[in-house]
């Protein structure tokens, strides 16, 4: 089990950031991903592996006013 935006979410072996974004339907153009507080750049989404127990935050990049 991992945390995604403070809620429990099922983990599976080999889960990458891209897998998670696809599963959760995060499709906004600019996404911020942090795993255990550490920023994960977009170019790493395909191969960055999420570990069991990780705390994942996925946010939209929002800056308009």
């Amino acid at each position, binding site marked *: 089990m991992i945390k995604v*935006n403070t809620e429990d979410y099922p983990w599976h072996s080999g889960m990458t950031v891209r897998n998670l974004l696809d599963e959760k339907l995060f499709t906004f*153009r600019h996404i911020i991903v942090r795993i255990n507080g550490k920023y994960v750049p977009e170019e790493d989404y395909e191969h960055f592996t999420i570990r069991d127990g990780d705390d994942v*935050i996925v946010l*939209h*990049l*929002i*800056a308009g*006013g």
Partner: protein
Amino acid sequence: MLRYQRNHDAISEVEQAILAEKRVLVVGCGGLGGYVIECLARVGVGHLRVVDGDVFEESNLNRQLLSSTMNLGRPKTLAAQQRIMAVNPMVEVQAIPTLLTVDNAEELLSGCDVAVDALDNIPDRLLLQQAAKSAGIPMVHAAVTSWLGRVCVIKPGEDLLNILYPIETRNTGEEGLTSILATSVAATAAFQAAETIKLLLSRPGLQGETLELDLLNMTVTKIKLI
């Protein structure tokens, strides 16, 4: 006072008197700022310092409360001042038609109890966060795009914007490219104004977290950041 009769008992009469003595800096008088200024004045915050260097353009009309076909080309701060004079003349509005800069930030924050971040770009938001930290006052951040909105309360030193805007993302120019709906702006600004009022009244509110609004899927989610 009849003006504030329907504020009570959501706000006590003692709290109403406290609000009348408070001063809030609102940086940005566009989408978020327009609605926040309106809410704060109607609730009865006594002193508003409103800052914006822009004038209204036609493209603002889809979402900015203070804009109208009558005031295109006129300063946003002036519109804010005139609007509040008409809505609640008991509120003092200092209209400062300038952009926030490193040089004027300290002076703009001087004497204020809370800073409201109603800006529209990442560098200026970070500048306000730093200035509010230096001044030792809390900042209420909000941002919108499309159907989405976000609100955070940032106490001095928490630097939540550093989490929301990693260094690698700060030059995307995203804010100028996406759509923004009036519904997202109004809803997000209402939450932003509510958090501002609660800070002024020392009531509990958002703490180290972001409130994420999604008006398309009708969700409101709190996410812990620190």
